[in-house]
């Protein structure tokens, strides 16, 4: 028995090496003769994913899985990996789900988990080994009432971007409270730096400030606020704190904010025009191409002086789900677990440049990802608030108006309450 185990491990190792080197995998039938005497069970697994840009990486990973199954379980799995183009993905998936031809495993956006769960298309994975590996707050983004309904693949954490070199030169540390942020702003100004990059031409950019401050305030102090807003039983008056950082940022930012688009804002930030930029880590592409030597960092935007409110935003997009009607349920679950495998998962996530989201992901990510992930690992992250899109849009519009001073804080509160109420109708 021991001999068999050692042998199969060797086979597995050799196979995974072969797979990694991108060569064609040797015919599995050969290895069965080496690995075991009884003939393997033949099975098929259908997987559909919405990320064709990572086709190569997943192809390799699937081959590794096939080899592992053959070696460890003596199952000859044939995995059919499909990746329709992402603009057609949802309609293809919908058609297959309703047509009774559901793939055994498929990806979906975590925003749709509730809908798919209601339709009975998701398997509860809470009892699987993978559940304990995912960081708690990431797990929350793909869970409903404690039931883990998918394996998160692409997860993003973001807060305020800052220039580490400027911070070091000015001798300041990242802030934990609003008072810290005020101090930093003063010190930076004294040293001749502009504290904040403002790029408000596109309404979604100022909106990021409300996203972060509301997220922090609500998650840290009034967790029932969103529910009450949906029940017409709350007000923006309760979260007026959000103007603490917003006023500070607007008063200490670059000029001509309304004439600055998001891309040129990112480029100017990369050139060192300002020390901080309220913008997600998705801007890192533009920033790093503009200035490849940029030392980019991320910190959580403080809302007030309560450290519990200083949180980064954490959201998950692509999630891998197991369909409850999967013919080979045990294999489907094995694959789901293999995605967060102790040995191989880190390589996969790194190859796809996904952010680390589980304990097994011990690779060295980019500096800004590492910063944001550190907040997540410490539990200092909030799950994206689910607000009506009319409300999010309005926040962006009103912040532009607030910046050009055509409305006051009171107007903001009043109008936001109205918009939320009319969205509830």
């Amino acid at each position, binding site marked *: 028995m021991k001999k068999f185990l050692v042998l199969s491990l060797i086979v597995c190792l050799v196979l995974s090496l072969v797979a990694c080197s991108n060569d064609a995998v040797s015919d599995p039938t050969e290895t069965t003769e080496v690995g075991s005497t009884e003939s393997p069970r033949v099975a098929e697994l259908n997987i559909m994913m919405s990320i064709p840009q990572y086709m190569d990486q997943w192809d390799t990973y699937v081959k590794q899985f096939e080899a592992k199954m053959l070696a460890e379980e003596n199952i000859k799995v044939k995995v059919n990996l499909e990746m329709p183009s992402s603009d057609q993905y949802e309609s293809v998936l919908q058609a297959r789900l309703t047509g009774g031809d559901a793939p055994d495993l498929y990806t979906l956006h975590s925003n749709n988990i509730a809908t798919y769960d209601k339709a009975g298309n998701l398997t509860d994975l809470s009892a699987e080994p993978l559940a304990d590996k995912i960081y708690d707050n990431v797990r929350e983004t793909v869970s409903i009432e404690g039931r883990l309904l998918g394996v998160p693949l692409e997860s993003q954490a973001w807060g305020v971007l800052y220039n580490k070199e400027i911070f070091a030169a000015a001798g300041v540390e990242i802030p934990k409270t609003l008072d810290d942020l005020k101090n930093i702003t003063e010190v930076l100004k004294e040293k001749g730096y502009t504290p904040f990059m403002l790029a408000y031409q596109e309404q979604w950019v100022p909106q990021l400030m409300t996203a972060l401050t509301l997220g922090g305030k609500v998650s840290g102090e009034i967790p029932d606020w969103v529910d009450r807003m949906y029940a017409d039983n709350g007000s923006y008056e309760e979260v007026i704190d959000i103007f603490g950082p917003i006023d500070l940022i607007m008063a200490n930012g670059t000029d*001509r904010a309304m004439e*600055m688009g998001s891309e040129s804002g990112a480029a100017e930030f990369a050139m060192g025009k300002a020390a901080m930029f309220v913008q997600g880590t998705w801007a890192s592409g533009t920033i790093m191409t503009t200035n490849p030597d940029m030392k980019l960092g991320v910190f959580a935007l403080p809302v007030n002086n309560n450290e519990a409110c200083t949180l980064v935003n954490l959201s998950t997009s692509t999630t891998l789900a197991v369909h409850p009607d999967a013919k080979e349920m045990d294999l489907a679950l094995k694959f789901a677990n293999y995605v967060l495998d102790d040995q191989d998962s880190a390589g996969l996530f790194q190859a796809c440049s996904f952010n680390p989201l589980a304990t097994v992901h011990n690779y060295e990510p980019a500096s800004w990802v590492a910063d944001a992930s550190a907040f997540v690992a410490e539990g200092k992250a909030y799950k994206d608030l689910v607000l009506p899109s009319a409300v999010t849009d309005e926040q962006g*519009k009103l912040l532009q108006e607030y910046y050009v001073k055509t409305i006051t804080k009171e107007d903001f509160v009043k109008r936001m309450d109205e918009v939320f109420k009319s969205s509830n109708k």
Partner: protein
Amino acid sequence: MKNFKANASLMLFVTPALIVYFIFKLMPAVSGLYYAMTDWNGINKTFVFVGLSNFIEVLKDSYFWDSVLFTFKYVIVMVFVTNVIALLLAVVIENLHRAKGLFRTLFYMPNMISMIIGGYMWMFIFTKVMYYLADNWGWTFLDKSWIGDPKYAFIAIIVVATWGAVGYLMIIYMAALQGVPAALKEAALLDGANPWQQFWHVIFPMIRHAVTICVFWTLNSGFQVFDVIYSLTGGGPGRATQSTAMNIFEEAFRGNVRYGYATAKSTVLFAIVLVITIIQIRAMQKKEQEA
């Protein structure tokens, strides 16, 4: 019988165009009236008939009426500015002895690119070039918040829209100017009319029909203004430069995605434009006949 036959063959010729017009223009317009009375969101298979409640809501929608007010302001300014400039250009270029074709082409060119692209080009000018001139050449009068200050944003929009529209109007005016009999001009000259008198009392009355067409066109396109504002200010800051068409667009495709309500709004816009253009055409035609 003969009459009928002639009519029938005429009908036969226009039928294909009529069918296309009916299916793609008339049907959507009429069915839009019906959707304006539902709460359809554009995606759902089911919707509820809600009667006139959407129209009642439109009456109370202050954002909508703000945008209507803005559109009126835009249309009034545009009708004057574009027509005066277009006519001026047409007269000047008509009187050139050389390079007529060159200038005609130059001024017509903006018309040949989409205003969305034109808007983005001007966005670059307003947000980068202007500030470069202000900072490096000392042209401080350019150092204005061209997108952020509602007052200057309006000027910016007018500048870009005029840039895009004058070429087209200019061509119409030039064609009309060429139609003015040379004998009339010569007669006026012999009678001792100065150039201004020549233009105002002889040429202008002769090109009134072109003025009607151009004013009608600017009115009509002005009320539907969307692309320039969308690419230049996005209706911002906030809603300060939001035209009615943008307000309708946002209602239908952004936020709460209320298709039915947005259709109700566009029906109201249609009614407003209809009334105004009828008045305008009546008034101008009277003038034309008098002349």
